[in-house]
């Protein structure tokens, strides 16, 4: 009985320590960008790894999600003879909800896991210690560009996802199912508000970007230096970021809908 109490205490202290450690780690990584000569090439390389290489999966998923929303929406709306509203159904559901959330989930699986595995392997093969030996700060050289690359890439990926999902919906709704193209676009434009819908979606995705890359680099940087540890950290990254995305999505939506 007393042992259980002690265990709860120990795990609570552990938890608090990790929260503090990760917060300090995040603040240091955000602030300690590499010096001016190196920052752009390092950032470009990481944006390429994290953002450009994720393009294919993001764009393909966006196309299919737009198409399936159009198909599902059409068959529901046509029962009320309201298939002209298909454009606004697709645009609002994609721009507000599906775009930020699905892109963030895919990003966590595609880019977050690879960031964790890369940093974990660096830790396990003592490359990080080697950098410290050579008086190179690993946080500013390795962690900070990856964090910033994630924060920059995810909103851009979300915008591209939104666009291609709406185009996919257009393909299915207008080209295949025969909804009138003019009313598709005008109903969409009449109901989608730039600030309320599009900008709030992008704000959401920026928050998700910070959370995902933070979790990914933290889990990688402090992963136990062996193969089991790396696999555990990678799993944790995907699980934690997915949970955080869905939970934060609810909180952010509640804030934005409640006349923020």
């Amino acid at each position: 009985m007393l042992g259980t109490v002690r265990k709860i205490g120990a795990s609570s202290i552990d938890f608090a320590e990790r929260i503090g450690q990760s917060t300090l780690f995040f603040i240091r990584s955000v602030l300690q960008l590499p010096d001016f000569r190196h920052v752009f090439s390092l950032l470009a390389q990481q944006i390429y790894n994290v953002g450009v290489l994720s393009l294919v999966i993001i764009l393909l998923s966006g196309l299919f999600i737009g198409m399936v929303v159009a198909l599902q929406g059409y068959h529901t709306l046509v029962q009320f003879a309201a298939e002209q509203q298909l454009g606004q159904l697709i645009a609002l559901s994609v721009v507000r909800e599906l775009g930020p959330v699905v892109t963030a989930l895919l990003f966590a699986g595609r880019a977050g896991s690879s960031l964790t595995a890369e940093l974990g392997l660096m830790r396990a093969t003592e490359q990080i210690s080697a950098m410290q030996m050579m008086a190179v700060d690993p946080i500013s050289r390795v962690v900070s560009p990856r964090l910033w690359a994630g924060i920059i890439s995810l909103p851009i990926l979300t915008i591209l996802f939104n666009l291609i999902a709406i185009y996919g919906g257009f393909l299915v709704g207008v080209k295949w199912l025969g909804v009138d193209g003019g009313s598709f676009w005008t109903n969409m434009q009449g109901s989608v508000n730039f600030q309320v819908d599009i900008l709030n979606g992008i704000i959401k995705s920026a928050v998700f970007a910070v959370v995902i890359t933070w979790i990914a680099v933290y889990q990688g940087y402090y992963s136990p230096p062996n193969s089991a540890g790396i696999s555990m950290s990678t799993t944790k990254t995907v699980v934690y970021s997915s949970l955080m995305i869905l939970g934060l999505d609810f909180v952010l939506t509640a804030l934005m809908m409640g006349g923020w």
Partner: protein
Amino acid sequence: MRSKVVEWVVGLFVIAGLASLVVLAFKVSGFSHYSSSDYYPVVAEFDNIGGLKPRAKVSVSGVVIGRVESIILDPRSYQAKATLLLNKRYRIPLDSEASIFTEGILGSNYISIAPGYDANNLSPGSVIEKTHSAMILENLIGQLVYSFKSDKSDETKTDAVKQ
């Protein structure tokens, strides 16, 4: 040399993102700022605006000629004061009537202007005097039920039905 290629690709990626944002803004949200040179504001006061919202369309004979800019409550008359932005291409007579209609049964509300015969036109800031409130479905049903009842029981006198 690989680094140069990477930088090019990343540059394209960022530019594609920004371009998509612009397309989203204009194509999807129909984002267009009404510059004061193209539109002029007109005020209309309604007893009840029903479900009218800012950005709702203003039409004459079904042709869209402007948008609702803002809706506020007049603190003195307790009427809803809607500011409309009308396209400068169209001149609307001063004695025109503004009514709030609904698109279809479940659609959104919009303002329809029935042109009058006055020789003078609405100018920036002028007020549309004749307005018709939105039809509130509950009121209509209430009136209907009330008139049915009075028909059936054949009461001697019914109060004037309040609109």
